[in-house]
């Protein structure tokens, strides 16, 4: 697994570098450190959301409600900020994480305890959370003038050339990478998605792993609610509409298997960055935004094909005669493994 993944990650790095080189040939300055930092900063929210989505996808589920969660939580903290300007920012961020985690826990509860398929449960909450954002705000916008400067400007504060928003993404990447590879919870995500039955027999509580994956995804979506509102300096019901699909796309491009149990944090981050580079580059070279969507879609399909081919290789050839007459597709067997 690790070899294939490294191969996949290296491939993504290479593709991203080629893209940057090609774009900078057309638009000088595209590859300047400042521009690259800008692209990373611009992709930060997608990266954070993709990591939450990855936790859910690892357990063989999907969270379609992340963008709606983001919208509701963003609206909630923006309204809190405008109504009570004296509430300090750290408390608002904690509130964003808490509200998001709560909404995620609702998804997790439905999947774990009620047994509703994740795609249906989160399709339902997608609508509900947006509706809640509407009910909460009465359809009104929270404008720049209603929010405090600290609320709006903190994520934009540059530190060593990168705004705090970008540093937040780096911090989340570091935390999630540690959690996924170095904690029992992270391991249980891979086990629960890789072979739920085997995980059950090994004492891993598969349902609970899913529940906490949804909660993590929700908490990160809540955090992004604040980040999004402050970045665009406005909160309204329709922010980030359809953005949940971008998070799934980033995961799929990054090699997170939709069948569960396979994928790395590096892959998800690179998948998000790939989308970020395309999104930032195409306007620079005067390509219409409609092409951006078509290109993203094409890349997703290619990535899925790529994933499917890798997963097929794990299959065994049970019919020996057929195996002989078929072109060899299997990986070279591990030496000494055929005992």
């Amino acid at each position, binding site marked *: 697994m690790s070899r294939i993944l490294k191969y996949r990650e290296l491939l993504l790095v290479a593709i991203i570098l080629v893209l940057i080189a090609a774009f900078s040939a057309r638009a000088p300055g595209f590859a300047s450190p400042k521009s690259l930092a800008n692209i990373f900063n611009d992709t930060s929210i997608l990266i954070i959301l993709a990591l939450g989505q990855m936790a859910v996808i690892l357990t063989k589920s999907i969270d379609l409600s992340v963008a709606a969660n983001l919208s509701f939580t963003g609206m909630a903290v923006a309204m809190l900020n405008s109504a009570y300007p004296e509430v300090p920012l750290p408390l608002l961020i904690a509130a964003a994480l808490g509200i998001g985690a709560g909404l995620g826990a609702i998804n997790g509860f439905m999947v774990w305890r009620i047994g509703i398929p994740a795609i249906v449960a989160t399709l339902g909450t997608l609508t509900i959370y947006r509706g809640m954002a509407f009910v909460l705000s009465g359809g009104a916008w929270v404008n720049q003038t209603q929010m405090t400067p600290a609320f709006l400007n903190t994520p934009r504060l540059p530190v060593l050339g990168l705004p705090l928003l970008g540093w937040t993404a780096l911090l989340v990447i570091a935390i999630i990478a540690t959690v996924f590879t170095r904690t029992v919870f992270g391991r249980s995500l891979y086990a629960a998605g890789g072979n739920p*039955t085997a995980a059950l027999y090994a004492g*891993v509580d598969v349902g609970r792993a899913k529940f906490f994956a949804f909660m993590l995804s929700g908490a990160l979506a809540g955090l992004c609610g604040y980040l999004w509102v402050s970045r665009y300096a406005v909160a309204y019901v329709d922010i980030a509409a359809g953005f949940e699909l971008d998070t799934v796309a980033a995961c799929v491009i990054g090699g997170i298997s939709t069948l569960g149990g396979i994928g790395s944090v590096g892959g998800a981050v690179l998948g998000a960055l790939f989308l970020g580079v395309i999104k930032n580059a195409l306007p620079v070279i005067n390509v219409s935004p409609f092409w951006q969507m078509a290109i993203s879609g094409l890349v997703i399909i290619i990535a899925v094909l790529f994933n499917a081919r890798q997963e097929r290789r794990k299959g065994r050839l049970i019919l020996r005669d057929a195996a002989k007459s078929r072109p060899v597709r299997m990986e070279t067997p591990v030496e000494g493994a055929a005992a």
Partner: protein
Amino acid sequence: MSVVQAVVQNSPPLLEMRGISKSFPGVQALDSVDVALFPGTVTALIGENGAGKSTLVKILTGIYQHDSGAIIIDGAPVHFTSAEAAIRSGITAIHQETVLFDELSVAENIFLGHAPRNRLGLVNWSAMNARAAALLTSIDAPISPYMRLKDLSIAQRHLVAIARALSVEARVVIMDEPTAALSYKEVEDLFRIIERLKRQGKAILFISHKFEEVYQIAERFVVLRDGRSIGAGLLAKTGQDEIVRMMVGRSVDHVFPKLDVAIGNTVLKVSGYSHPTEFDNISFELRRGEILGLYGLVGAGRSEFCQSLFGITRPSAGSLELEGRSVEIRSPADAIGAGIVYVPEERGRHGAVLQMPIFQNFTMATLGRTTRAGFLREAEEFALARRYAERLDLRAAALSVPVGTLSGGNQQKVVIGKWLATRPKVIILDEPTKGIDIGSKAAVHAFMSELAGEGLSVIMVSSELPEILGMSDRVLVMREGRMAGIWNREGLDAETLVRAATGNQ
């Protein structure tokens, strides 16, 4: 081979299998088997689990192709290259667990795949419903063809399955344990249908473990053992004892190496374990170093009972004592913590996470031991994995490669190593040698002896009599969810166990 020849049979066989052999890699499933089916006659196919009955049925229905031998229908040899070819030759099968579609109507279920068409090639609904109604009437089944399958009872579904089997102009009907899921009354109904089919001149192959039923409905029998036909003839002239002897008939004392180990104190005491639907009132004690064989027919509730011991399902009554202390097991994690582990039957599906590295599979059930302050320690994980890989003689290029790249035997070693790493007191092995070749079987048995020698208590679920008799210190037999008895190894013979498991006293 002592084939009991039939008395003069007026009609020639409708279908004959002559010298049918079939092998799978490492296993000779069928070895020159002879079966003859006569029109208007029920022939019972009898044999232990693993005797080759299912393989034979799959060859007859075109799912497998035989390696050598011939299938002859009406004196002409046929060769089935597909399930469809077998159906075209008039062979149809009713399986134990029928595959039907809940959301479709009865008529659609009966004619799925061969619905009557009109001139435009569209489904001719009126013809389909009329023919379905006629078929159901012909087997005395008062079911409307318009009903949805999900609204029918189990027994009614069974009738639909029979109607489906008969919808293809069948001449040979194979019934694979058709009574397994039926109540007494429903069995009587089924037998009436079988009598009807007999009168219509169909040849019926009837598979059942229940002797009572076999003697009630069948005229002829064929006994399979280890993939060979051991005997055939008329049931009226053959006693049950003789058939049991044919099924078992071999000396099994020296097949498996069970080392004598010191049997210690009681480790596990199970009292009155019950489940609402799967098993009832199971009680026994298990001692240190002991191997307890758990024998019974498929579906006797053995796996269900063991899964309940392991916390996958909860018992409705009963208690557990482990080393004298009462324990309650609510989840597999509880069981592992208490020192009970369960190595499931389908190791591929239940055992390993194939895309995970070997070392992570080894440590999956013991993550608490390789964790410090909430963080996994990879070095310790590797150390633990290396220890058990060496002990089990695992052949792998590196412990960081996915388990899926290993051979089946080595994957099994990883699964067993994962459980040993939890340092259990009681290990439950569900069909530990099912589907593996003779050489590996011996290795697994030697390993089980070794575990017992180290003071582990073993519960071994097995459907293979030689294995049960060779390995167990004591044998518990389950029949239809209940304990049929518990025997010590001394003086125990196969016939006693088969009688207990089949209810043939």
